[in-house]
C-alpha cells in the first residue's frame, strides 16, 4: 500500500533540500535514490552493520532506520560533505593508514569517527572503539581504522595539499614501498561506485522469488494474470524463459546449478522466478502475493542424513550424494602409525561460515548495440561472462562484464549470483534491469565455507619427529557443486600442515546436502583441516613433553624436503623462518601467562600457536593471467589491470610490480579496469594468486614493454626511462633519446608502445595417489594467540595475536599487514562466534562477525624468504593469513584450561560445556 507524500525540508551537507516524499521512507533511500548521494551505503537495512551511518543534527544514526519524517528542519551530513572539495583530516588519515580496503564500510566509519573527533579530537583507542563499534568491517580487522582515527589530528596542521603528502615512490623504488593505494581516493570520498551505486534511473527493478524451504517442489499459478494485474509489474520470468543452458558452476565439468530452479528447489533461498517491475513499484510489492505453490519435501541438512541409505539423491550421477573424493597417500601410513612411539587421535567439527561482506550482491544490466553489458560486483569477470553467456544463450562476444567496485568478496563473489538474472530481464525486456540483494537474500542464496567433520591421527617418534598422519574429512558441500571439488582436492594436499610427513593418507569427501551451497571462502577447506592438524600437534607436544613451538620447528618443511604429494621444494620454504621469528614472542607470552596464572584463578591465561602453508593458484590446473600495458600518446603508462581488486590491493600491487619491471615511476601509471571488453583475463581473484600469478604476468609484460622501447631507442638494458608530458626520454650515460609519444601512431587501445604477456604457474597433475606438483609456489605463516578464559562464563578475551608470514617479498608492506590483520579478524570470527544456520541466522544480528572491540592488538612480522618463481620473489598471502588464527586460539584455550574444544565456533556455551565435561580442574 502507498502512503501519501508530504513535503519535507531539510539540509544536506549545508545545502537546503525540499522534497515531497512518503514520510516513512528510509533516509538511506532518500539520500541514495532521490538525492544521488550514493556514498551512504546500505548493508543490512536493519541497523546491524552501520554502513549507512550519517550525522543527523551532528549525531551518528543509521540512515536505514530514520524515517524521512524525522528530517524536517534537520541537518544531515554524509560522507560527501566531509571534505568540501578536498579531504578532511580524517579522510587523509584513512588514506595514509590503509584504513580502507574494499571501502564499503569506509563512509560509515568516517561518519561515526567524525562525530567522535568533533567532540574529542585526540581520542584514545577505547573511545575510538566505542565510536565505531556499531560499524562492521570485514576486510581490515579494524586496527588501521582505529589508528587512522587516533592520528587524524596530525593531518589538521598546515594547508592542503601540503598536509596531504601522498607522493608516490621514485622510479625503481615501487616494490617494497607502501604508497597510498592507487584506488584509495574515491573510497574515502564516497565517490567509489559499488554494485548498487550507479543504477540507471530508467531501470526495471528485479525482485527474486526464492524458496522458503530447504527442499520443495513448486508450481506456478497464473503468471500472466499476475503480471497483468499487479500495478507496476512489467514481466515475470521463470526457468522456462531461459534461452540458454540453465546450468552454471565455477568448475565447468561440475556445472549443476540452475539460475532459476526447475520443478524442485534444493536449498532454502534458491531462486525460482523473477519479477521485473518499475522502480516505484518495487517497494510496494509483497512477494508473498506471488502465485507459487510450494510442496515441502524431506530435506537432508547434514552429511550423515544425506548419506543414509534411503536419502534422496540431490543430483543424478552422484551416488551417495558424494560430489568428489580427494585423496593423497604417501609411504605406509598404517604401518607407521602402528609402530610409532607416540600417536594422538582426535576429531574436530566446524560450522557453515558466511562471508558477510558488507556489500550485498548488486548490479545492473543493459543491452546496447547488441551487447549485453553487466555492471556488478565480482571477483571473476571473465568467468561471469562465460557462465552468463551460456545461460542466456549468447555468444561470449555478445556479453560484456564491467566490474563495479566490489565491497568485499572473500571467495563468494567468484560464483555468479545475480548476473544471469538481471541479464535475462535486460535481454527480454530491452530495458536496463537493476537488482541489489537484501542482506537476507545475500546470506541465504550465496555460498558459504564448508562445514567439516574431521578425524585424524598423527604419530611421532620419541624425538618428536612426525612419522605419519592419517586424516579424513567430510565436507558439507550443500546443494550444488560450486567449489566443492576444489575443497575436496585442496584439503588432502594441505592437511599435513607445513611439516615433513613421510607416511600420510588424507581423504576428503564433498557431500551434497540441502544446505546452502558451500563454495570458496578464503582457504578452500584448509582452515578447517588446519584446525584438526594443529590442535593435534599440541596434544602430541604434550604427550612427548616437548615445547609446542619446538615441535613445530623440528618438523617444519625445509628446502629440499618433499611434501606429502612428493613435490620436492627446492627453494623458498619459509615456515622455519616464521617459527623462528615467533620464538622470542612465544617465550615472552608463555612467561606472561605463567605469571598471570600464578596470581589469578577465575580467569586463566593461555597461549597457542599454529602454522599454515598454502599453495598459490589452482590445484594442478591451468591458471593463467594475462596483463597488457603500454604507453599512451599522453605520456602515461596505461596498465590494463585485470586482477579484480576487491580490497586486497591488486590495483596497487600489480602496478608497483609493473612500474619497477618497466623502469618508470609508479606515478606514471594509470589503471584500466578489469572490464572484459578492454582488459585481458587476469583470472579470478582467488587462491591467493593475484600478487603471484598476475604479478608475474605484469612483470613479464612490463619487461617486454621495456625491451620494445629499448629496441626502438636502440638502447641497452642499462638505459633509464623518464616520462614528462608526452615525451619519453631514454638515456644511457651521456646519450639521451627523446621519443615524442604524441607523434606516434596509437593502436586500438590508444597505446603507442604496448606489450601483453601471460603467465601460468608450472604445475603437474596429481596421480591416483595424489602425488605430483599441485602448486608452483607456496606461502607460509605462523601465529601466536594470547588470551584469557573466564572459567565461570566460558568467555574468551583475546589479548594479542602475533603473526609471522612469509610473503617472499612484501611488494607493499602496508597492504600486506592489512591482509594479515583482516584475515586474523575472520579467523577470530570462525574460532569464537560465527555459525551460519539456514533459516535462523540470515541477518547480521544473529550471525555475528567481530566488531571493533573483538580484535586484539596484532603484531605483524613480515618474513621474506624469496621464491624464485614469484615476481620479485613474492608469494601469495590473502588466504594464508586466516588459516592459523582459529587453531592458535583453540590451542590457547586448551593451554589456559586444559580442555580441548572440538567444535568451532568455541562459543561460551561450548567452552563451559567442555569444562564441565572435563570435571573440576
Amino acid at each position, binding site marked *: *500500500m*502507498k*502512503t*501519501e507524500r508530504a513535503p519535507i525540508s531539510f539540509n544536506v551537507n549545508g545545502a537546503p533540500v525540499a522534497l515531497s516524499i*512518503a*514520510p*516513512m521512507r528510509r533516509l538511506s533511500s532518500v539520500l541514495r535514490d532521490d538525492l544521488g548521494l550514493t556514498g551512504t551505503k546500505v548493508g543490512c*537495512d*536493519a*541497523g*546491524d552493520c*552501520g554502513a549507512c*551511518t550519517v550525522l*543527523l543534527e551532528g*549525531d*551518528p*544514526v*543509521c540512515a*536505514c*532506520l*530514520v*524515517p524521512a*519524517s*524525522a528530517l524536517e528542519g534537520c541537518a544531515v551530513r554524509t560522507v560527501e560533505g566531509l571534505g568540501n572539495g578536498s579531504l578532511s583530516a580524517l579522510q587523509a588519515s584513512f588514506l595514509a593508514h590503509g584504513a580502507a580496503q574494499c571501502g564499503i564500510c569506509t563512509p560509515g566509519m568516517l561518519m*561515526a569517527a567524525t*562525530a567522535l573527533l568533533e567532540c574529542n579530537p585526540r581520542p584514545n583507542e577505547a573511545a575510538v*572503539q*566505542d*565510536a565505531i*563499534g*556499531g*560499524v*562492521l568491517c570485514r576486510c581490515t580487522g579494524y586496527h588501521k581504522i582505529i589508528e587512522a582515527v587516533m592520528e587524524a589530528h596530525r593531518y589538521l596542521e598546515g594547508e592542503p595539499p601540503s598536509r596531504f603528502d601522498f607522493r608516490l615512490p621514485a622510479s625503481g623504488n615501487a616494490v617494497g614501498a607502501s604508497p597510498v593505494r592507487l584506488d584509495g581516493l574515491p573510497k574515502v570520498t564516497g565517490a567509489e561506485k559499488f554494485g548498487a551505486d550507479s543504477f540507471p534511473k530508467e531501470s526495471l527493478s528485479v525482485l527474486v522469488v526464492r524458496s522458503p524451504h530447504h527442499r520443495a517442489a513448486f508450481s506456478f499459478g497464473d503468471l500472466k494474470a499476475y503480471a497483468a494485474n499487479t500495478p507496476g509489474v512489467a514481466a515475470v520470468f521463470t526457468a522456462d524463459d531461459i534461452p540458454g543452458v540453465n546450468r552454471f558452476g565455477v568448475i565447468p565439468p561440475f556445472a549443476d546449478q540452475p539460475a532459476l530452479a526447475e520443478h524442485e528447489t534444493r536449498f532454502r533461498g534458491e531462486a525460482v522466478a523473477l519479477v521485473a517491475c518499475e522502480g516505484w513499484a518495487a*517497494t*510496494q510489492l*509483497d512477494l*508473498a502475493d506471488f502465485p507459487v505453490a510450494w510442496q515441502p519435501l524431506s530435506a537432508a541438512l547434514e552429511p550423515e542424513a544425506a548419506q543414509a541409505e534411503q536419502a534422496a539423491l540431490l543430483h543424478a550421477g552422484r551416488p551417495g550424494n558424494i560430489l568428489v573424493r580427494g585423496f593423497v597417500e604417501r609411504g605406509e601410513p598404517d604401518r607407521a602409525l602402528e609402530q610409532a612411539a607416540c600417536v594422538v587421535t582426535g576429531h574436530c567439527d566446524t560450522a557453515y561460515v558466511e562471508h558477510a561482506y558488507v556489500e550485498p550482491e548488486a548490479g545492473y544490466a543493459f543491452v546496447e548495440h547488441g551487447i549485453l553489458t553487466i555492471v556488478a560486483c565480482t571477483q571473476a569477470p571473465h568467468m561471469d561472462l562465460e557462465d552468463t553467456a551460456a545461460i542466456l544463450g549468447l555468444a561470449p562476444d555478445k556479453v560484456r562484464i564491467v566490474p563495479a567496485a566490489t565491497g568485499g568478496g572473500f571467495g563468494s563473489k567468484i560464483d555468479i549470483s545475480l548476473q544471469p538474472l538481471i541479464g535475462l530481464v535486460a535481454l527480454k525486456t530491452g530495458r536496463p534491469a537493476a537488482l541489489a540483494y*537484501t542482506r*537476507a537474500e545475500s546470506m541465504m542464496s550465496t555460498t558459504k565455507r564448508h562445514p567439516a567433520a574431521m578425524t585424524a591421527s598423527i604419530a611421532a617418534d620419541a624425538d618428536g619427529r612426525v612419522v605419519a598422519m592419517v586424516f579424513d574429512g567430510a565436507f558439507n558441500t550443500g546443494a550444488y557443486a560450486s567449489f566443492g571439488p576444489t575443497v575436496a582436492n585442496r584439503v588432502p594436499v594441505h592437511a599435513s600442515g607445513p611439516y615433513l610427513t613421510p607416511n600420510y593418507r588424507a581423504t576428503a569427501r564433498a557431500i551434497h546436502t540441502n544446505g546452502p551451497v558451500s563454495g570458496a571462502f578464503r582457504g578452500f577447506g584448509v582452515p578447517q583441516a588446519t584446525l584438526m592438524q594443529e590442535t593435534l600437534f599440541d596434544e602430541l607436544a604434550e604427550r612427548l613433553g616437548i615445547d609446542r613451538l619446538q615441535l613445530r620447528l623440528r618438523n617444519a618443511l625445509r628446502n629440499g624436503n618433499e611434501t606429502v604429494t612428493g613435490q620436492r621444494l627446492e627453494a623458498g620454504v619459509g615456515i622455519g623462518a616464521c617459527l623462528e621469528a615467533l620464538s622470542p614472542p612465544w617465550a615472552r607470552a608463555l612467561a606472561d601467562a605463567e605469571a598471570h596464572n600464578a596470581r589469578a584463578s577465575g580467569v586463566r591465561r593461555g597461549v597457542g600457536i599454529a602454522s599454515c602453508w598454502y599453495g598459490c593458484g589452482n590445484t594442478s590446473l591451468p591458471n593463467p593471467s594475462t596483463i597488457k600495458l603500454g604507453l599512451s600518446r599522453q605520456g602515461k603508462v596505461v596498465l590494463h589491470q585485470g586482477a579484480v581488486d576487491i580490497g586486497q590491493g591488486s590495483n596497487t600491487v600489480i602496478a608497483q610490480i609493473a612500474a619497477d619491471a618497466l623502469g618508470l615511476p609508479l606515478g606514471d601509471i594509470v589503471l584500466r579496469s578489469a572490464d572484459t571488453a578492454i582488459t585481458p583475463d587476469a583470472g579470478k581473484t582467488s587462491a591467493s594468486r593475484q600478487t603471484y600469478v598476475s604479478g608475474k604476468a605484469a612483470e613479464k609484460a612490463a619487461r617486454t614493454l621495456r625491451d620494445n622501447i629499448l629496441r626502438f631507442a636502440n638502447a641497452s638494458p642499462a638505459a633509464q626511462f623518464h616520462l614528462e608530458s608526452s615525451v619519453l626520454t631514454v638515456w644511457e650515460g651521456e646519450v639521451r633519446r627523446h621519443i615524442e609519444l604524441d607523434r606516434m601512431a596509437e593502436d586500438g587501445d590508444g597505446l603507442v608502445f604496448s606489450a601483453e604477456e601471460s603467465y601460468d604457474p608450472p604445475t603437474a597433475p596429481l596421480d591416483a595417489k595424489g602425488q605430483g606438483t599441485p602448486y608452483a609456489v607456496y606461502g607460509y605463516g605462523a601465529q601466536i594467540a594470547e588470551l584469557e578464559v*573466564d572459567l*565461570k*562464563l*566460558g568467555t574468551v578475551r583475546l589479548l594479542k595475536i602475533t603473526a609471522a608470514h612469509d610473503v617472499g617479498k612484501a611488494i607493499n608492506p602496508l597492504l600486506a599487514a592489512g591482509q594479515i590483520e583482516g584475515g586474523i579478524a575472520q579467523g577470530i570470527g570462525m574460532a*569464537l*562466534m560465527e555459525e551460519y*544456520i539456514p533459516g535462523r*541466522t540470515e541477518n547480521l*544480528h*544473529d550471525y*555475528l562477525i*567481530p*566488531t*571493533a*572491540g*573483538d580484535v586484539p592488538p596484532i603484531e605483524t612480522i613480515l618474513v621474506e624468504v624469496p621464491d624464485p618463481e614469484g615476481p620479485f620473489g613474492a608469494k601469495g598471502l590473502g588466504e594464508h593469513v586466516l588459516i592459523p588464527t582459529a587453531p592458535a586460539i583453540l590451542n590457547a584455550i586448551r593451554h589456559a584450561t586444559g580442555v580441548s574444544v572440538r567444535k568451532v565456533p568455541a*562459543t*561460551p*556455551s561450548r567452552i*563451559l*560445556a567442555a569444562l564441565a565435561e572435563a570435571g573440576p580442574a
Partner: protein
Amino acid sequence: MTRYARPKTLDEALSLLGEGHWRVVAGATDFYPSLGNRPLTEDILDINGLTGLRGIARTGGHFVIGARTSWTEIQHADLPPAFDALKQAAREVGAIQIQNVASIAGNICNASPAADGVPPLLALDAEVELSARSGVRVLPLREFVLGNRKTALRRDELLTAILIPERAARGNSAFIKLGARRYLVISIAMAATRIVVDADGRMAEASVAVGSCSAVARRLAGLEQALTGQHTAAIAALVAASALDELSPIDDVRGTAAYRLQAVREIVVRALQTAAGDPQRRAAA
C-alpha cells in the same frame, strides 16, 4: 493507501488511537528491521511530534522518564547511583547509532526477551504510565510485559512515561550483559542488581532482575529474599544456594539453556558484588 499521522499534542494522538488501529513509531529502530523489505501495510502513528514525551523529571515522588527519551539522553542524565544499571544498559542497546534515536518506551513495548532496558527498570520497580482518551492507568512494568512480543498495552493506549518510585531509587546498582562479542550484540543473558547496604555491610534491600533467560525478564524474588538482611560478603554463597526458579531459559543460537542457567548465576553474583562496591567486579563480563 496507508495512513500516516504525526500529531503535535498528546490529546490528538490519543484521539487517533481511539479511532483506529495504528502502529506507533518513535525511534523506529525496531520498526524497520521488523518491516524488512516488505511494503508498509499498517497505519503509522508517528509520536515524534510529541515533545512533552521526552526528558527526565522528578515529580510527585517519582522519577518520570518520558516515553521518547533516548538511550543517549539516559546515559547523560543526572541521576542517582540506583540508575547506574540503567545507564550501563543504555550503552548496550545496539550501537551509538541506535542509542541516539531509540526510545526507552520502544524497548519496553517491543517486548523482546532480550530487551536490554527491561532488567534495570525491573530492578528499579519501574511502572509504566499508559494514557488513553478515557484516562491514565499505571501498571508495574512486570505486569506490563506479558510475553515474547506481548504487552498489556491496549489498542487505544500510548505508553507515555516510565515512573521510578523515589523509594526504589536508592542504593547502588549494576548491570552485566553477557554476549558473544563486544558491541552490537543480543545478550545470551543479562543481570541488573540494585542493593541498599547498611552501615554494617548488610543488604537492607536487594533487587535482582535477569533478562534473556525467560520469555519476559524476571525479578528473582526468592534470591532477593535470601539476600535481604545478609552481609554482602555472603553474596556468592547466597546466590549459589538460591534456586532461581523464576527462570526458564531456552536453547538457541546464542547458548544452551543449561549454559544460561549456569552463566546467569555467575553474572548475578558479579552484578551484586559490583553494586556492593567490589571494584574488582567493575570490569564485568
